[in-house]
């Protein structure tokens, strides 16, 4: 059985959605508190969405200093940052580039079309700093069909295959259950599962 860990930071708000999505797939899932060093083995570690430390200074800037992030088992577990988690991974230097303010300076919260694995999927996005720039070597795994936030090359998600680190701004965990009206998030979780 896949063993998944979900790091929760002060201000994280997508940890339950992520846990429910993992459990829907039959994964054994538990939370990891930000102040705990990661010593157990997990097949997958999620840095979920939210507003860690209230986005103060800049999104993800403070969370990168926590014991959980500093002890991430790079290269051993598959590490996935979703939205604020992606911001934390870039701030920590675990993924290249940076996520700056959206080109229209608005907080964008809507469902959007994305190019993913030779097809189009629909997922929710909800961010203020999602304008990605400065990719250096990672594979692009997801693109906005229409560039909603000004990101270089319409980038919505990247994958450092060598170190097994994925970052994406859209929220697949919010698109798993029929009652949420969207289920394309399942395709992303299936992709993640195949990368373990």
């Amino acid at each position: 059985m896949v063993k998944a860990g979900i790091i929760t930071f002060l201000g994280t708000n997508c940890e339950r959605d992520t846990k429910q999505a993992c459990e829907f797939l039959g994964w054994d899932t538990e939370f990891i508190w930000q102040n705990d060093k990661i010593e157990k083995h997990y097949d997958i570690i999620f840095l979920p969405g939210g507003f860690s430390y209230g986005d103060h200074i800049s999104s993800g800037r403070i969370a990168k200093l926590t014991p959980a992030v500093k002890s991430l088992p790079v290269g051993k577990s598959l590490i996935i940052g979703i939205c604020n988690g992606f911001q934390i991974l870039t701030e920590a230097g675990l993924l290249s580039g940076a996520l700056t303010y959206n080109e229209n300076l608005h907080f964008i919260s809507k469902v959007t079309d994305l190019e993913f694995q030779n097809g189009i999927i629909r997922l929710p996005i909800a961010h203020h700093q999602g304008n990605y720039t400065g990719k250096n070597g990672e594979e692009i795994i997801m693109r906005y069909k229409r560039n909603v936030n000004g990101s270089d090359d319409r980038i919505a998600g990247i994958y450092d295959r060598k170190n097994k680190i994925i970052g994406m701004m859209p929220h697949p965990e919010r698109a798993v259950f029929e009652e949420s009206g969207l289920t394309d998030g399942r395709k992303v979780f299936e992709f993640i599962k195949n990368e373990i």
Partner: protein
Amino acid sequence: MKSFKATVNVKLKDTIKDIKAQTLEQAVHSLMPVQNLKCKAGNTYSIEFDAKDKNEAEKIINTIAEEILSNSVIEEYEIKW
């Protein structure tokens, strides 16, 4: 120990599109005509602390600026004492 006070100014590198500054320029132009207007957005932090000497104080403030106040991928900072 001596007391030190530093001001750290953080702004986007010139190679990164400064959307807040562009918005400010548009706002200024809608307010009044200004020739050769160039804006730059950023943040200013005022930090006081004690250190053994200026050398140690510089190390402390540089660490704070590099690790917390700025992201070297997109931003640069300057320190004023």
